């Protein structure tokens, strides 16, 4: 059986095929969720924005003419959804949840329970490292962060990022460079306990 392209799946969805959209979600969802999660640092919010992204894909499905890569179009929508959300959050007071357990060592306990790691200390160290990276990424501008995440984690080319962010290739490179330069200062020196 031949695999249908993204454009074909989207067109099938428009035509009423009831499984096409699910295939699109399954094909692009994991990477997209990773992108959104790294952009917002909140897994629950990321899931909401993930749903919002695909809702918009459905709403604007007719506007996709297949002129560019579906992936770029999808990430473009996701980026807009995320940035819109960031703007909204800026207008709202910051709320802290008492249930948040990002850095309370619960990851270590969970890891022990899941039998994923042998050494709890290793897990705690890993949690700390994650937190440091998250904090560092948080210092970047939205454009820089989006560019770094798409390039570094999503493996997108600069051309694809340019398509996604609807800007020139040189602009993307500038965002990337400035983002990396900032990270070089923000990230700690790679030293510490290693095994």
């Amino acid at each position: 059986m031949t695999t249908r392209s993204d454009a074909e799946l989207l067109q099938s969805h428009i035509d009423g095929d009831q499984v096409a959209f699910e295939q699109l979600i399954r094909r692009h969802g994991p990477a997209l969720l990773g992108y959104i999660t790294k952009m917002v640092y909140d897994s629950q919010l990321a899931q909401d924005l993930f749903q919002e992204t695909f809702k918009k894909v459905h709403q604007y499905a007719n506007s996709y003419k297949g002129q560019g890569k579906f992936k770029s179009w999808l990430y473009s929508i996701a980026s807009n959804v995320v940035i819109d959300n960031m703007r909204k959050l800026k207008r709202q007071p910051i709320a802290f949840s008492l249930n948040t357990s990002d850095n309370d060592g619960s990851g270590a306990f969970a890891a022990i329970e899941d039998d994923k790691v042998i050494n709890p200390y290793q897990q705690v160290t890993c949690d700390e490292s994650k937190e440091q990276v998250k904090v560092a990424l948080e210092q970047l501008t939205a454009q820089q962060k989006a560019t770094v995440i798409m390039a570094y984690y999503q493996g997108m080319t600069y051309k694809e990022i340019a398509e996604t962010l609807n800007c020139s290739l040189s602009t993307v490179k500038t965002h990337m460079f400035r983002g990396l330069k900032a990270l070089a200062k923000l990230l700690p020196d790679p030293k510490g306990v290693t095994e």
Partner: protein
Amino acid sequence: MKHLIEQQLIEYLYELDEQDSRIATAEHLENCPQCRAALEELKAKFAQLDVLKDDVGLTESLIFDTLRVLEKARNDMKSTEKSTFLPKIVISVAALFMFFVGIYIVINQGDDGIATDNEVATNIPGPAKDEVENDVKVAEKGKVTEPELFAQAFDGSHSSLGVKSIARVQGSVEVVPVAKVEELLAKKPFAPASNIELNVLPRRKYVQLTIYNDADLTLVRETRDITFKAGWNWLQFMWANTKIDPTSLEFQPLAHADKIEVQQLTFSPRLKDLGRWLMSSEVSGQVPVEITYLTSGLSWRAFYTATLNEDETKMDLSSYVRVENQSGETYDNAQTRLVVGQVNLRENIVDLASRQYAYGLPEGAMIMSDDEKRLFKELTEYNRHKIQAEIKSDDYSIDKLGIVEYDGYDTVVEGFMWNMQPKKILKQALSEYQLYTIEGTETLSDSWSKRLPSFAATDIEVESLYKYDEDLYGAQAVRFVKFANDAEHELGLTPLPQGNIRVFGRIDDDGHLNYIGGVDTKYIPVNEEVELNLGPATQVMIEPKLVGYKTDNYRFDGNGNINGFDEVKTFEIEINNTRAIAVDIEINRNFNSLNWDIEFEQTDVEYEKHDATHGRFKLEMKPASKRMLRYELTVYNGVRRDEVLGERETDRE
């Protein structure tokens, strides 16, 4: 040598530089260990970003949620289309009007200036007409779309146990060729895709509730017609806002059972109150299926009204049951059965229903106790063959079910409830449980209770009994009505479930009643005597008095000290019956000793030694009569106990 700066290293590392400078940087790095070290350090620093790789995974539930959001958006769009339908018509009509005006102007400017209606009609542009028709179709379709109905079910407004299926084929059942089925089943079953692919199913075709009286437990058995397609099918159910125990859910096709197989039952961890069956089907079409589960929140209680005749020798007894539904679910036209018996529940069903995860118990823990399982099995199997027989006849009417063939009050039960005849409650023994089936069907709405007549028996022979027992009731007579649950008393066909009995008496020939008393009764087995305690008596007085006391038969030890003697007490019991009817009297006396004798000479009074320390007098008092009982009690103390015991043994020899 001029070393590379950080900007050059970053640009080189991430290919941000131009081709020329890239070559130059590479050449420099080849010859400069210091810059190579700096590059490695930078690489290591950026490598820390890797900790966030592979940090998230896409779960099935998120896919499901996303598809649900999508479906909602789709419905919203349809609603929008519907709301914009009217303006579209207005615009279309306006366009047509303008078109007519244009035509009219053109024709009037023409040579003859005359146009027939037909000519005008044929000038109406086809596409514009089609657009109007198409709009109408869209609007009508949007009015009652399946997803909207389905969304209602999803929200719980249609049915809390919103069972949904992806199957779409309607009509008769078709057995699909094996090769085709194998081909279909060879494909991996797709994940349930939310409302997009789910239809709302017909309402319950048949529902039966078996309410267990002593435990908060109800077995629900419902039949629905589900349309399957050949291959994989998902069936989704939800129990939000109900007290249904999801772990008890069972699914069984009532037809083509060998061609429909349940592969798995899954409960999504993120989606509360929702589960899905994955089934493979070799048939396509509509198949009746039975879904069974346990719920809590339904209860019933028996109430009795007893009416005594004027001389209190006979009693009419009527019974009804009140069924209360606090289960969170409305059961329309449900056949209702009531069970009396004891079941040992390890957990409350309501707790099972309200917990976060369907199978949240520790691994290996059983959900049902043995008693629960046994009851569940018995109740589930009980009428299955009858239901199946009914399915074959393609008729689901309750009155044709074999359930009414019982050995109860009425061997033939006619008709449904539509004739407004009082319903009968049919009784059956079920293992060690007693089953009461309410005739016909009832709608049990959530948060409502309903009272249903159970049975009525007339002219039950009763005895009015007055008891005097200071240990139990204090120094007063207490009134009882006594009868037996047996054939002699016009009863005895079934045990009587526990409940509340209110007793009334007739006070005149016009049938006026007075309330005598009420009492909660326990479960009354067949052939068991019943004594209804109606409270303290006011018209029958019983008053014991100690009227004489002496000591006798003293015994002394070697030192001249008393080591034994008899106490002789004389009692008189005055009994005054002010009522106009004869009554039975029972008087229990506690002698507070194990060694006693009684002298009692009245032959018309029945006396018996009730137990080691008690004596019992029974007599009948005539209407408006007074009499005195007199007895002498001798209590043996010290060595006198042994002497009397020795004398009795000698007498026996």
